């Protein structure tokens, strides 16, 4: 009886903010010994943050982490977690591509050393691979970089379950099946069941609701940085799970925006693109002046589709045709958007340099006029457009990126989830601006991870696994529809 109540980890009152955005607010979560816990939620619900706190890759702003009942000090980190038997398989691969499978195992285990270490490491990982993925076909001396992505994922998973000097007690699997094929995915989940039966614990996230329902003992549903449901898995079914993740009042909100609805297809087509991984010929189609939404879980090919359209600007190819110049508003400001050494004015003008040239040189007055015009239009809060871009808050930096795109000659604007970490006031201002620009004839293709934002769109495509899986007209748009399409039907085939 003790087994059922004993907790391997318990988090209480976890709080974490990134800048102005609160990712987690006072969350409690516990994983029992011998339990497989499913964690589900839509984008931005706080799943990843919670997992990172547990794995020790992020430090909480507040709250307490207890492992096997022992409260952890502030220095709780990856190393400590590892020593306590908590292993995490991260979504981004954490293998060294230049090393072999066995060598990657050695890196995980300090005790694998001395004479014959390579043989021992190979044997260790091969046995575990055989145990988890029978018939895997991965030679332990193969270089990881030469393996297929699915095989790498298998290695990563198997490595997390290997044991040398300290036991493996809790394995966190964050979307472990996303790059595995159906057979390997099933093998893994079957192994997880065996692992928890023998007294181990698992924390599992997946966009395949069937997997969660079939293989987890208990399911925790997160939304907006908090836990909204925590029940035994048998108490859920697909519909109730989707309902728990969704927003009950969204129906009413969508109706409130209905006046935006436009008739589709009255204007010429400006973008037609078939995603590279699409198995049929379903294409994203945008007509001039439309706002097209791209939905689905983060990382399911939306950004790739936007880049495919970006690269095809002004060209007609077999799978992609784009008429006219294109500008992109990045969402990941640091890696895709901001030129960090430059002023606000230069960050705005970079997309429009050609139009600012007078007599071979960039006209400074015109450049500054452009920046000032957009400072007024989009209300960028700065005393001087010559200040460095980093002097702005995140929301205002994002406005600069909007100004860069909207101030250019581009008739087609791509938006790569641009409202990440932006405050509500800014959002509302930008929505209005986008609608005004669309009415003036600009076309928007808008990838967003926030379902509510889709209310601003004329037409929505939902993507999953790199493909367009649903094509929803404005009038038929409901949050449930988007969620249903984002999470795959049933279990695996």
């Amino acid at each position, binding site marked *: 009886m003790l087994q059922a109540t004993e907790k391997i980890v318990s988090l209480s009152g976890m709080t974490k903010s990134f800048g102005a955005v609160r990712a987690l607010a006072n969350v409690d979560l516990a994983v029992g010994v011998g339990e497989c816990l499913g964690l589900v939620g839509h984008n931005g619900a706080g799943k990843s943050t919670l997992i990172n706190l547990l794995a020790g890759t992020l430090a909480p702003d507040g709250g307490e982490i207890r492992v096997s009942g022992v409260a952890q000090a502030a220095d709780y980190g990856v190393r400590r977690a590892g020593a306590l038997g908590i292993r995490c398989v991260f979504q981004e691969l954490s293998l060294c591509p230049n090393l072999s499978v066995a060598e990657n195992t050695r890196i995980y285990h300090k005790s694998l050393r001395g004479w014959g270490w390579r043989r021992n490491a190979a044997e260790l990982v091969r046995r575990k691979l055989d145990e988890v993925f029978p018939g895997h076909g991965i030679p332990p001396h193969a270089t990881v970089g030469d393996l297929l992505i699915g095989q790498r994922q298998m290695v990563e998973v198997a490595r997390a379950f290997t044991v040398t000097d300290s036991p493996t007690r809790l394995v966190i699997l964050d979307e472990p099946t996303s790059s595995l094929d159906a057979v390997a995915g099933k093998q893994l989940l079957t192994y997880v069941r065996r692992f928890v039966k023998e007294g181990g614990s698992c924390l599992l996230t997946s966009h395949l609701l069937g997997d969660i329902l079939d293989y987890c003992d208990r399911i925790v549903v997160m939304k907006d940085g908090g836990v909204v449901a925590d029940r035994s898995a048998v108490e859920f079914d697909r519909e109730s799970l989707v309902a728990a993740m969704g927003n009950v009042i969204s129906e009413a909100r969508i109706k409130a925006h209905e006046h935006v609805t436009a008739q589709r297809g009255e204007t010429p087509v400006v973008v037609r693109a078939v995603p590279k991984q699409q198995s049929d010929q379903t294409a994203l189609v945008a007509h001039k002046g439309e706002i097209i939404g791209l939905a689905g879980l983060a990382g399911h090919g939306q950004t790739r589709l936007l880049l495919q359209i*970006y690269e095809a600007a002004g060209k007609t190819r077999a799978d992609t045709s784009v008429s006219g110049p294109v*500008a*992109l508003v*990045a969402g990941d400001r640091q*890696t*895709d*958007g*901001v*030129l*960090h*050494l*430059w002023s606000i004015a*230069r960050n705005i003008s*970079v*997309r429009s*340099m*050609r139009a600012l*040239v007078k007599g*071979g*040189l*960039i006209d*400074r007055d015109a450049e500054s006029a452009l920046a000032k015009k957009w400072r007024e239009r989009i209300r960028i809060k700065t005393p*001087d457009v010559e*200040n*460095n871009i980093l*002097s702005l808050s995140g929301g205002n930096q994002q406005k600069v990126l909007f100004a*860069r795109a909207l101030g*250019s000659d581009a008739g087609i604007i791509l938006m790569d989830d641009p409202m990440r970490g932006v405050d509500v006031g800014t959002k509302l201002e930008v929505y209005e601006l986008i609608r005004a620009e669309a009415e003036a004839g600009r076309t928007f293709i808008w990838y967003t991870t926030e379902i509510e934002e889709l209310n601003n769109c004329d037409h929505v495509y939902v993507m999953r696994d790199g493909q367009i899986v649903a094509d929803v007209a404005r009038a038929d748009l409901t949050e449930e529809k988007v969620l249903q399409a984002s999470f795959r039907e049933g279990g695996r085939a």
Partner: protein
Amino acid sequence: MNALAARLGNKPWLLSFAGAFAVWLATILFTEGKGGGEMITAALSFATFTVIVGIGQMFVITTGPGNVDLSIPSTIALAGGVAMKIMGGQDSLIWFGLLACIGAGLAVGAFNYALIRLLKIPPIIATLSSSLIVMSVAISYGRGLQIKPPPSFADFTTAQISGVPVLSICAILFAIAMAIILERTIYGRATLAIGQNVRVAHLAGVKVERARCITYLMSAAFAGLCGALLAGFSGGNALNMGEEYLLATIAVVVIGGTSVAGGRANVPGIWGAALFLYLLVTMLNTYGASAGIRLVLTGLIIIAMITLAGGDKPSR
């Protein structure tokens, strides 16, 4: 407060000029004021060549980590030989010789860029490989012979107007032009944007490959021009006359306040650093330091400068 810090941060080159001035002062204090003027004239003369190639290297380094032109010394040797051979000591052929040395430089630059683009190899390896080939071409082409420059060309490269070398005046004008190109043309802005973040630049509509191509062409062309001028200045070409410029160009770029991580370039700083390096050597000479001590101090100063500037981004 922020604005003030930003303004000072924008002028790191002041430091290199201050350093140059301090070193000059320290020297003439030692000599009790003798030879101060001549020292400046000599510093201007020698700095001129470093500045011309240094600006090319600066554009290359500005395009981001891993970008360095290692082919500069060979290009100087080759172009110097080409220019002297074509001029053949005749005043009437000076312009042809100058065109030819720039042409030779452009050819090397095109080769460099082709290697980088086609073989997808890091620029440092591409320019290293091509430098070896270019050096052989230079050896074979010149047969190790020294050809004297035409008299008017030699006169031009050594001419002075009241103690200021004519060539230095040209190089100052050249630096001003390059500073304008850097800040006010699409090409210059593209280079700066690429150096900050290639991906961002591309997504902001910058023509990345075009800018990179121009950069490598320019660097090699300047090295070519420098080769001809050096040959004129020193009374004939020599195969080893570019040798010191590999290290010198990287040193003046770093000391002059250009960021090795890319995206921040500084033309005036190149002048300051070139003067500083020359005057430093003169000072050490005056103080009676040996060649070895001069080298050690030069190295330590480069390391101190880069350590002070700090690496804000991990880079090679």
